């Protein structure tokens, strides 16, 4: 059984092969072959991941080294994979949810030409490969390869329909926003190399434990590295101030949104910090920063989601908000709770995005929920599964989202009551906007066109089957983390993760825990009721009040960035080009040049354009010297 670790390299290699074959053979593969290849390779990875997971669960873990990536001076960076509790859990999420998204895509993308279809699956496989590399890497450099890889794949997929300039702009925005974070990540990496000379997790954490708060690894070093890694995470995981790319990323095909928001990419930041939890536990100030950034992001994004009318935009901001919760958990030291929420969120967010895809598919491309309504009767499976997703994300027991959010809220409560109140408010907003979305889409009267009404139909099995699987997972997925207060032998997930993430021991009375659960559940249900009252029979037409318009326009953050950063930078660049470069430096040079030319003409020595001759003479005379010299010696 130990041998399964020896096969671990196939986990990322299979999707990579899929990507290569689909990419290079896109002219020759038909859609069935491309789809089978794309999905099959990820399924293969999933099976191997499952075997790896059980191996880890049996108490094994290993670092498998393949070759030296870089070995110079005192720096050695091996190409190695880390197989332990944290990575194996992420492997399951990535390949499992990823596989379902691949299957769904075979039907969703069927209208593409076969070459484009293969290109799509090639990118999709490459995305999964990159994310697998990210979580399997046994050092920060391999992690960074995956880290940049997912950035690249999101760029390729967001701009998949490359004829549309708005889409390719969104793709560029995603990549560049990510790059800003990547720079911080890189500097942290350089800092680690400079200070410690090692990059692999084990060696680095050992070094930290040995030398923490000494000359060799001071508190400043710890703060700098943790803050920089966190900035990197805000890029990848769409937190303040670098979150604005994620809502735009919905320009890509809907299954891609599911992949980005649920199984890959945005969870990378959480993974990075959870992986480095030992370091972060030494940096209370950074944790404090993280908790506030997470909290504010959760609140801000939730407030925006309340007023969005695009089905995918609502979900996109909800992702930003949920990621905020995860960072809040990290900030309060509840790394396990954050990872738990990553998992449950992967289930219900993939479900919701794929569900929205099914709705968009049925509505012939319509994404505005004001033009939907009453779809529950025609799209039974989509409706029921979407409902399950909404209940799960809102945090109503016993659905999965309840348990992970409860774990986060409990940790926040113990950390800071003030943050708890704000977080609870954000959680209530979540329930409100999700059920607003649900009711606007599926309840009341149909508000679309006549043509759409005829067209509406339930999606094929390849799309509904993943929805059903994800719905089941959205219900039961949280049971692995049921708190001890409810059942004996609980918190299976925390126990599983404990080799990587030390378990927290809460000192809190059962009464408090019950009270918190009851409070949040009661308020959430009240919110659902409020949404029901307000949106079950929505009538369009009323102009929104000013504050709602502010939310609808996303607090004008994009415009602010444009005005404060992009425009000035563009002006500076234009000024450098036309004034400094052309008139300043070049003007000076040309002046010198003209002077030389003028004096040369006066001397009738060289003609312009014959300058080569001048130097040729110089060299020829040297060569002549050589020859003369040679003969004289003889």
């Amino acid at each position, binding site marked *: 059984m130990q041998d399964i670790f020896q096969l671990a390299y196939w986990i990322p290699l299979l999707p990579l092969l899929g990507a290569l074959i689909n*990419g290079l053979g896109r002219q020759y593969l038909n859609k069935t072959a491309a789809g089978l290849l794309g999905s099959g390779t990820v399924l293969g990875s999933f099976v191997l991941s499952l075997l790896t997971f059980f191996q880890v669960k049996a108490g094994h873990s290993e670092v498998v080294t393949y*070759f*030296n*990536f*870089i*070995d*110079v*001076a005192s*720096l050695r960076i091996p190409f190695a994979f880390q197989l332990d509790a944290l990575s194996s859990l992420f492997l399951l999420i990535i390949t499992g949810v990823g596989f379902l998204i691949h299957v769904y895509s075979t039907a969703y993308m069927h209208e593409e030409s076969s070459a484009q279809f293969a*290109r799509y699956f090639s990118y999709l496989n490459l995305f999964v490969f990159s994310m697998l590399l990210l979580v399997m890497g046994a050092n920060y*450099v391999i992690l*960074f*390869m995956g880290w940049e*890889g997912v950035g*690249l794949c999101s*760029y390729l997929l967001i*701009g998949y329909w*490359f*004829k549309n*300039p708005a889409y*390719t702009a969104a*793709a560029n925005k995603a990549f*560049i926003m990510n*790059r*800003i974070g990547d*720079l911080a990540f*890189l*500097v942290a990496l*350089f800092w680690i*190399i*400079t200070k410690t000379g090692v990059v692999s997790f084990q060696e680095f954490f050992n070094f930290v434990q040995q030398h923490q708060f000494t000359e060799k690894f001071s508190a400043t070093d710890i703060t700098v590295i943790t803050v920089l890694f966190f900035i990197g995470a805000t890029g990848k995981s769409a937190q303040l101030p670098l979150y604005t790319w994620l809502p735009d990323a919905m320009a890509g095909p809907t299954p891609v949104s599911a992949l980005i928001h649920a199984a890959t990419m945005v969870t990378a930041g959480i993974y990075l910090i959870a992986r480095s939890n030992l370091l972060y536990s030494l940096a209370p100030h950074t944790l404090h920063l993280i908790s506030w950034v997470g909290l504010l992001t959760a609140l801000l994004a939730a407030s925006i989601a309340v007023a969005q009318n695009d089905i995918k935009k609502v979900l996109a901001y909800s992702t930003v908000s949920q990621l905020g919760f995860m960072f809040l958990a990290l900030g309060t030291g509840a790394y396990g709770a954050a990872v738990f929420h990553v998992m449950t969120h992967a289930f219900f967010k993939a479900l919701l995005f794929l569900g929205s895809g099914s709705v968009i598919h049925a509505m012939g491309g319509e994404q505005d929920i004001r033009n939907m309504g009453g779809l529950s009767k025609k799209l039974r499976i989509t409706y029921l599964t979407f409902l399950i997703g909404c209940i799960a994300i809102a945090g109503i027991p016993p659905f999965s989202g309840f348990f992970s959010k409860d774990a986060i809220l409990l940790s926040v409560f113990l950390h800071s009551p003030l943050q708890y109140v704000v977080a609870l408010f954000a959680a209530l907003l979540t329930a409100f906007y999700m059920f607003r979305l649900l009711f606007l889409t599926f309840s009341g009267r149909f508000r679309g066109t006549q043509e759409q009404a005829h067209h509406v139909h339930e999606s094929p099995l390849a799309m509904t089957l993943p929805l059903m699987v994800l719905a089941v997972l959205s219900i039961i997925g949280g049971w692995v983390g049921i708190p001890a207060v409810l059942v004996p032998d609980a918190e299976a997930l925390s126990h599983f993760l404990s080799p990587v993430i030390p378990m927290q021991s809460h000192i809190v009375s059962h009464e408090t825990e019950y009270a918190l659960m009851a409070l949040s559940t009661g308020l959430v249900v009240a919110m659902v009721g409020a949404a029901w009252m307000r949106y079950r029979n929505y009538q369009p037409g009323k102009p929104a009040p000013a504050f709602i318009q502010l939310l609808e326009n996303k607090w004008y953050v994009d415009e602010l960035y444009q005005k404060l950063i992009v425009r000035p*930078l*563009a002006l*500076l*660049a*234009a000024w*450098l*080009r036309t004034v400094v*470069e052309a008139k300043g*430096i*070049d003007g000076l*040079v*040309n002046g*010198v040049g003209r002077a*030389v*030319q003028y004096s040369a003409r006066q001397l009738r020595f060289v003609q*312009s*354009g014959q*300058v*080569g001759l*001048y*130097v*040729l003479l*110089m*060299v020829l005379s*040297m060569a002549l*010297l*050589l020859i003369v*010299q040679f003969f004289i*010696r003889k």
Partner: protein
Amino acid sequence: MIALLIFLIPLLGGIISFVAGAGKKAAHTVFVLSTGALLALTLLGMTSWDQPALQRFSAIWLSSLGSSFSLALLPLGKVLCLLTAIVYFLLALYMTNKVVDRPAAFYGWLLLAQAGMMGVFLAMDALLFYFFWELALIPMYFLCSIWGGPRRIAVTFKFFVYTFLGSVLLLAGLIYLQSLTPEKSFALDAILKLKLTTAQQSWLLWLVLPAFAIKLPLFPFHTWQPDTYEEAPTPVTAVLSAVMVKMGILGLLRWLLPFFPIAAYQWGDVIMGLAVGGIVYASLIAWRQDDLKRLVAYSSIAHIGLMGAAAFAANTLAIQGLCFQLFAHGINILGMWLLVDLIERNLGTRKISELGGLAQHSPTLTLFMIIIALANIALPLTNGFVGELLMFTGLLATKSNYYWVLAAVAGLGIILSAVYTLGMIRSVFYGERNAVTGKPVLVSVPEQLVLFVIVLLVLFFGLFPQPLLDMTKEYAEQLFSQVDISYLFRKF
């Protein structure tokens, strides 16, 4: 012996091309044979014939001046000779079936330039080094002024003024160094043994540096470059930027830093400051270019800026990264120029604003461009990443007090390179087609082969950089131990 052959083959090839290349096909055939033979020999020289005796050559030259014709294939030179041989051979394949005006002279000058560059990489004598330096430049003047674009005369003149100014100062510096040696010798080893005072080092550094700074180019000595790259025929531009700028790096590493280590350290902050400032400066200008060639030119200035800074970072990691990047940059920028050339040849323009939607008709071209662009922005698993990783780490580990400012400013280049590269891809390859881009960009079989090899090199050294790193490992570790500066400390 190998060292001599590496210099002689292109020299003879060039002469043969001039003499025998009258026919249209003949000149190109000579070019392919000569560059192919050189590549084969270089590869052999790297692998099987690597005994020191074979890699050195020495003959009597201007002995009354204290100069000798001594060549040696040392690690740094090996990387550069290999790069030059590969670039030239790929270029030769790429030029298959391409119409060139007066091919005999064109290919002849190109080969003579190659001989000059090989000489620069091999020379172990200061005067010889200078001789080759000029030998490499002269063909470039001819290539630019005869086969260039409409503004070729003015631009070549500017190129000449810049480089000539640098050359004169370089020659003066080298002659002065010779006069200081007890045996009045130009030999590298003799100059290395000089015990220069801090003051001498300081002004000699500024005497010699401009030649290399211009060649690279380092900000603010760079304005000849975008003009020259724009006006020169694209194969010549490729040679200039893939290989010839590396003469400047070699100059820094072999003919400047070991001679003046104290001055290099003293002035390191200033020079590194200029270099990393130039990264941001050139990146911003690249972002606002409408001409593909000028965009690539400024992007190259930005990349070279980092390499220049790394040279002065004075630690093993930076030098190791620099040696790797010498090679990687050459391969990547060659790919970039060939793609630009293909677009211009097929569509008749290289204005970004006139292009658009190329991805629809030319998916293969797009794929090549994306991979090479990714290497250009140093994405991991491309060869661009390895060098930048090591150079940045080296920059952060430098003993300068401003290390974090340098790293931060240079880091902006990481973001900006993505901004202008992806911006260009978006404008040129994505979006709807227009009247200009209505027809596909045809990529012939030899062209595809060349681009495929380039992409293969990009990805191979991105995943397995170690073989290349090993070539310069000892060199990078010893660069800062070969110079004895203890005499300076004894005085105090």
